[in-house]
Each structure stands twice: as C-alpha cells, then as structure tokens.
C-alpha cells in the first residue's frame, strides 16, 4: 500500500504538479477570453461588419431573446431528443449487429463488402429518399442520425470483439465453455474499452446526423435555426445556435468520459 506520510520533497513535487494543472486551465480559459475579446472588439469597432461576423454580445442577446420568447428550450429539446434517440438506436442496434457478425464468421464474410460500401457512402445522399419514406418530421431526422452512426458502431464494436485475446478464449475452451459463455464471460467484458471508444465517436456522429437531418427536413431544432438564420441573413441566430450546439455536444462527450471513469477501473 502507498505511504501517505509524504516527505517534504514529495509535497513540493505534488505542489508543482498542482500548479502545472492550474496553469493549463488558466491558459485554456485565457485562450477563450482572448478569442471572444478580439471578436467583440472587431465587431464593436466595426473593423468587419458585425452583420456578417456577429459578435459574442450579439450572440448572448440572441440567446436571451430565444429564452424570453420561449422558443430556446423548444428547439434545444427537439434536437436533443432526435440526437439522443438516434444515438441510442445506433449504439444498441450497431452493437447487436456486431455481436451477430462476431458469432457467425460466414455472415461476417458475406456482409463485409456491404458494410464497407455503406461506410463510405455519404449518408446525405439518401436525404431525398428519407424524406419520401418518413416525411419531414422527427422520425426522418432520427433515421438519418441512426444511419450516420450505425456503421461506425458496427465496425468499432466488431473490431473490439475480434480483438479478444486468443489465449483467454483457449483457456475458456479448455474449461469446457460454450460459445455463449465465451461471449458473455470474456468477449463482451473485454470489449468494454472499445464500447466506450465507440460511444465517443458516436456522440459526434449523432450530432452530425441530427443537424444534417434538420438541414434537409425540419420545422424545429438547432439545425433548423441555423438554416433559417442563414436564409434570412440572421447571422446572430446562426452563431447562437452553433454555440449552443457546441455546449451540448461537449456536454454529451463529457458524460461518456465520466461513464468511462466509472465503468473501467482496471486496465484491460
């Protein structure tokens, strides 16, 4: 067990480490403040037309306006629902398909070229088809989100399952384990880091999918605000919606990082 009664030298080392962390954080905040400050200054002094580049204060005012007219949470809620639903379906369905492909080597070999083609296809090409199939509501956007995320989920999970240590499989087989036992006792738990990695990628993919979907067909949501703002030259609206998007996407990513810390306590 580690000694907790540290020497003076070790305490100095810890203090220095703490200071380093503080410097990094201060610099991070500083960079943001600098960018916002310069941006605001350029807009205030009208070095560039603020109508085109907007400004932090105009963005804040726009968010305040959306808040007071009650539409802020309506749009956030719409996009968040579409993103989370698409994300959840892509992750669950993708993992199940990956499991089936791990189970059957033949199915894997048969489906491999299709997966590769689907992966390289720009999903936005399917936009018109999706509108015809689903109309212009949330279900079309959720479908687009699933489409963007699912292949990535399948490919990441499959490579995670296939990377299971061969010696551990031999060990289980020598104990007389069935394929189902190998799956549940070894393959799934050992692929947990890949699962978390896949979640991280799928968070990004889900936002791409939902915003792309809203670009194609929507009546509400942050993507709708961006497109609408662009069409009527309300750059403040475009920037405000983009800013909110940044915050939401980062928040979702950090939730996954938090989950990783809670779930993976011992290195695989």
């Amino acid at each position: 067990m580690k000694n907790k009664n540290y020497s003076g030298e070790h305490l100095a080392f810890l203090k220095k480490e703490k200071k380093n962390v503080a410097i990094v954080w201060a610099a991070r905040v500083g960079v943001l403040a600098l960018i916002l400050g310069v941006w605001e200054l350029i807009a205030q002094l009208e070095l560039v037309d603020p109508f085109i580049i907007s400004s932090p204060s105009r963005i804040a005012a726009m968010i305040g306006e959306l808040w007071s007219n009650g539409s802020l949470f309506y749009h956030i809620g719409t996009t968040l629902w579409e993103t989370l639903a698409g994300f959840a379906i892509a992750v669950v369905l993708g993992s199940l398909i990956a499991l089936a492909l791990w189970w059957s080597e033949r199915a894997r070999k048969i489906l491999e070229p299709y997966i590769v083609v689907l992966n390289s296809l720009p999903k936005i090409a399917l936009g018109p088809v999706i509108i015809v199939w689903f109309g212009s509501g949330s279900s079309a956007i959720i479908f687009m989100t699933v489409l963007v995320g699912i292949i990535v989920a399948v490919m990441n999970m499959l490579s995670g399952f296939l990377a299971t240590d061969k010696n551990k499989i031999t060990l289980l087989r020598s104990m007389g384990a069935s394929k189902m036992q190998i799956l549940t006792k070894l393959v799934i738990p050992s692929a947990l880091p890949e699962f978390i990695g896949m979640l991280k990628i799928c968070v990004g993919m889900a936002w791409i999918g939902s915003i792309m979907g809203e670009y194609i067909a929507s009546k509400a949501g942050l993507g709708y605000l961006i497109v609408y703002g662009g069409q009527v030259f309300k750059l403040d609206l475009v920037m405000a919606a983009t800013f909110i998007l940044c915050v939401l996407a980062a928040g979702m990513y950090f939730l996954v990082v938090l989950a990783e810390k809670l779930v993976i306590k011992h290195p695989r």
Partner: protein
Amino acid sequence: MNEILDRHILSFKDVSLTYHTKEGETLAVKGLDFYVREGEFMAVIGPSGCGKTTVLSLAAGLLKPSSGEITVRGRPARESAGKFGYMLQKDELFPWRNIEKNITLPLEISKKNTPENRQRALGLAKKYGLGEFLRYYPDQLSGGMRQRAALIRTLAPAPEILLLDEPFSALDYQTRLSVCNDVYSIIRGEKKTALLVTHDISEAISLADRILVLSKRPAKAVAVHEIGFEEMSPLKRRESPQFSVWFEKLWKELNI
C-alpha cells in the same frame, strides 16, 4: 515406483495431427506414443516450434487427432471434459474480475459453482497465500502472485490432470525460480498428475519425474527418461550434481 503410479491416466497411442491452411498442410505430430502415470509430474521438451503446445491441445481435447487415439483412464479424451486443468504461458487472469472471481471462474463455466466447491477453491487460495488478496484485482498483484492465482484457478474445479504450457516463461528469472518452487510444492501437495511442456531443459529437470523428448517437427517421441530426483524441490535439484549430467544428456538428444 509404486503400484498406483504405474496406472496410466493419460495415453497417446500412435497419434498424428495434420494442420490444414490455405497455404498447405503441415504434419505437426507423427505417430506419437507416450503415457502419463497417475500422480506423476511429466515434462515434455523439444526444439522450439516442434509442436509441444499442440500435444497439450490434443490432450485437452481442443484439437482432434488426424489419426491415433488419446485416452484418459482408458476412455477417449474428448469425453473427458472437466478432467483437465490448463495453465498457459501468461496467467490470463481476467482484469475486470477480482482474484476470488477469477479463481472461481472454472466453476461458473462448468456450472458447478456450489457453496462447497467455492469453499474448496477459496480454501486452496488461503492455503497457498492468496487469502488476503481475494478482493484484489490482477493489476494490483505481482507477476509471481498472479501466476499462483492462475494455478489455484486451474486447481479450483479439482481436475485430474494439469496441463502446463510453459507456465513460467513470461516471468523474470528470479520470480521464475521461486514460482517454479511454489507450483511444484502446490501440485505435489494436492497430489495432482501434471503434464508440463517447456523449451527450458533445466525447468523440466527441476520439476519432472519423467521427461519425454520430442523431435523436430513433425513431433515424435525421441526418448523418455526417469529423472529419479524423487521428492527433491526444484531449487534443491538445481544444486545436485546429477542436474548438469541430465542437462547435457537432454541437450544432446534435442539435437538443436
């Protein structure tokens, strides 16, 4: 040798195995004949790549011989699931399970996770110095401790024969000598039959009652030797003058 030791628990009779891959076929084992007596520690040595691990996989029923017969107490080895305990080069402990759950894993797999069996397995862990570490995770233990935990896991389902596939090769030299001593005394203490494959001649001499020497691929038996150190511990054997005599003899037979 007494009467009990003379009973053959495991027999290979004219066993051959051919591997098939896209690149062609490889004869890995050719007409291999040998037996292991109940309660003895048998070591198999051979040039690297000769198919030593294949011999263990055949014994454990993980591979099916192309021809010949492998029997456990006169019955086909493939019908003897659960009679073998397999120990690999690395400990292969599952990092997400604590030591207790690693040790009882074979009981879960064979659906024999009864309170009595668990008690017996945990009793072994306590007897051999892992009692305080049952709640620890593998990454919190030293290499030697981990290998000991792997051995206890192998012993947990009370197998009749232990198959040891170079179980010390992933350890550093000092740990290796001490774990080797530990493993020997545990296997002797539990009166188990063991079949060890190793590329390390000294390891074979320090552990085994008998040594089977295999040829280069395709593996067949070159010689079988009674080492005759009786109950001497591996470290004591290494100090004996007979040790180097055996070493030279086996080295010549390996003909590397």
